[in-house]
């Protein structure tokens, strides 16, 4: 049986690595991302008889590929297309952390928001209505405290439901000014002809409008390899870039 691949995204210092360690225990191995001096940590765990591979993405504030860290995190979500992405947010500075979550939601449907450090926030008198946030964003939201192992079970149950299709998400997509939206629509329709639905075309259009031309070369390269592999094996397989 195929293991579910789960990406772990989040700002630096949100307890992302604590959660990673809590979930995977000693079953992890670290190295570098191919060709990059960025630490790549991967671990595995079992839940309800299913295998999960958890990939700890570099901690970043955004995914605009300003730095190697951001590029690595972005490329993983776009090219490796994990079965689910957990975005870890710091409950004590939710506003800043949500910026990253909104960007991830533009890229993929299968997202869980995991609000960490919840006990610290409560100590400071911050109360977060996770149900409301979940409704607003159209994806599951779980409150945890990775350090005190609170809420981990609920996170795992939600994760399992998501990868098994028991939860359908309707992710909130950012909307922009009419001018940008018109441009997106124009570019997006062309991209769809070329890439079909292999990549999130709306997001891709936005990135191109933002001037990221390198991305389209990367995509084309990735797409060609993918088609090649599909042809050789004649069955869809998981694709590594």
């Amino acid at each position, binding site marked *: 049986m195929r293991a579910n691949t789960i990406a772990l995204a989040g700002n630096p210092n949100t307890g992302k690595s604590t959660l990673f360690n809590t979930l995977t225990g000693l079953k992890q191995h670290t190295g570098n991302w191919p060709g990059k001096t960025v630490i790549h940590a991967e671990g595995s765990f079992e839940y309800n008889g299913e295998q999960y591979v958890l990939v700890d993405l570099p901690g970043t504030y955004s995914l605009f590929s300003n730095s190697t860290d951001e590029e690595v995190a972005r490329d993983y979500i776009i090219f490796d297309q994990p079965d689910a992405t957990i975005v870890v947010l710091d409950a004590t500075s939710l506003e800043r952390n949500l910026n990253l979550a909104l960007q991830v939601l533009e890229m993929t449907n299968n997202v869980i928001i995991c609000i960490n450090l919840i006990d610290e926030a409560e100590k400071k008198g911050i109360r977060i209505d996770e149900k409301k*946030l979940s409704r607003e964003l159209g994806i599951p939201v779980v409150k945890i405290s990775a350090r005190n192992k609170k809420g981990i079970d609920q996170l795992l149950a939600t994760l399992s439901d998501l990868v098994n299709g028991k939860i359908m998400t309707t992710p909130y997509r950012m909307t922009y000014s009419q001018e940008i939206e018109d441009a997106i629509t124009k570019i997006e329709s062309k991209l769809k002809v070329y890439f079909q639905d292999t990549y999130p075309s709306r997001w891709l259009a936005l990135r191109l409008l933002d001037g990221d031309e390198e991305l389209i070369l990367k995509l084309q390269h990735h797409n060609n390899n993918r088609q090649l592999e599909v042809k050789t094996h004649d069955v869809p397989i998981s694709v590594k870039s």
Partner: protein
Amino acid sequence: MTSQSALNHNSLQSILAEVKDVSNEDIRDEIVSNIYDKSKSLCKKVISEKQSELYRSDKLDDIFTSRIWGFPIMLVMLGTIFYITIAGANVPSEMIASLFGYLETQLTSLFEALHAPEWLHGILVLGLFRGTGWVISVMLPPMAIFFPIFALLENYGYLPRVAFNMDRLFKRAGGHGKQSLTMAMGFGCNAAAILSTRIIESPRERMLAILTNNFVPCNGRWPTLILLASLFMVTGFTGATGTLLTAAILMGFVMLGIVVTLTVSWTLSKTALKGVPTHYTLELPPFRRPKFWNTIIRASIDKAWNVLKRAVIVAAPASILTWVFANIYIGTTSILMHFVNFLEPFGHALGMDGFIMAAFILGLPANEIVIPILIMAYLSQGAMLEIEDLSRLKQVFIDQGWTWLTALNMMLFSLLHFPCGTTLVNIYKETKSAKWTFMSFLIPTVIAIGVTWLIATVVRAFGLV
């Protein structure tokens, strides 16, 4: 890697062409601000908190980082710091100076009583003691006032707001908002500021910050600027008005430094350091009240200690060396005077003189010793006079043919010239490039020479001096 040639599909190329057609440069700003607005509105909906602290921070940020008030507030803050520094440093400076003057007389009588040889008295008292005494009395008080205030602003959380405000300017110039933080460090010490450029992640912007850091006057150059401004620029004004004017002049010099920084950054990012400015997140931590006295005491002791250490390590040997150069004769002229005479035409062309040029060159190890070397060189020439009173110094300068042009150009040269030896060593360590280290020497030097030459030429052409 995929090369451009791989992009031969017409469809993809037409997409790219279309993208160029409909895109505009400000799209990233719009995307980011939309995302921020959404985050904010989401938080308003889902968070309930006793958010007194955060709320207060937001209110303050509306003022401190506002497009209208941000810059005026920054200028007023900077001006106030200068005013307090100059006004507060005057009295202790004079006191320390007269203390050293008194000690010098005592030491001299001691040497006479012991029938010590003239040269020993020269090296130790007139060279070493006077030189270090000068550095301490002129530099210690302003630094002990300036840095605690600066540290307070930092601990209150104001400096990140400065970076935020300045970011708009730096982005235009192809730089990074954090460059303004490394510049703020430069007020303390350029050598330390070079290390602080590590906070800038992208190599291109970091190089810009390294190459331009020198245009912020450091610890070692403040006293030169303050002294010359108060001696030559605000003549006819005394008391509070004089201090206010001196502060305003210093502000002007800091502004000039910033303008030069931005211009050089812009020019470099259009030429040698081409590239697209990267995007980044500037965090604005909440304003908080620091431990007031703790901050003040720590900062003043730190700075006082640093100044004393540098006075002993760098100024003392240089003082001795200068005295020796000034007192060893080849023919009828001292080594120092040979050097000075050699530099004289060059110095004159820049509106200064050979002594000043020699002082800047001998002062390469540390900017602190430029003025002491200059005074020592002037005094070794003729009438020996003790500097008990800072205002008597002006007479020494005027006797040497100084005008306001000399003072102005020396200040400009001090602001713009090559970084000190320690800074150059740090630049080499950080960039690992002899070429860029040399550039960081060359760029400021060329600018300093160009600006002072231009001013001297124009002023003389109009017969203003």
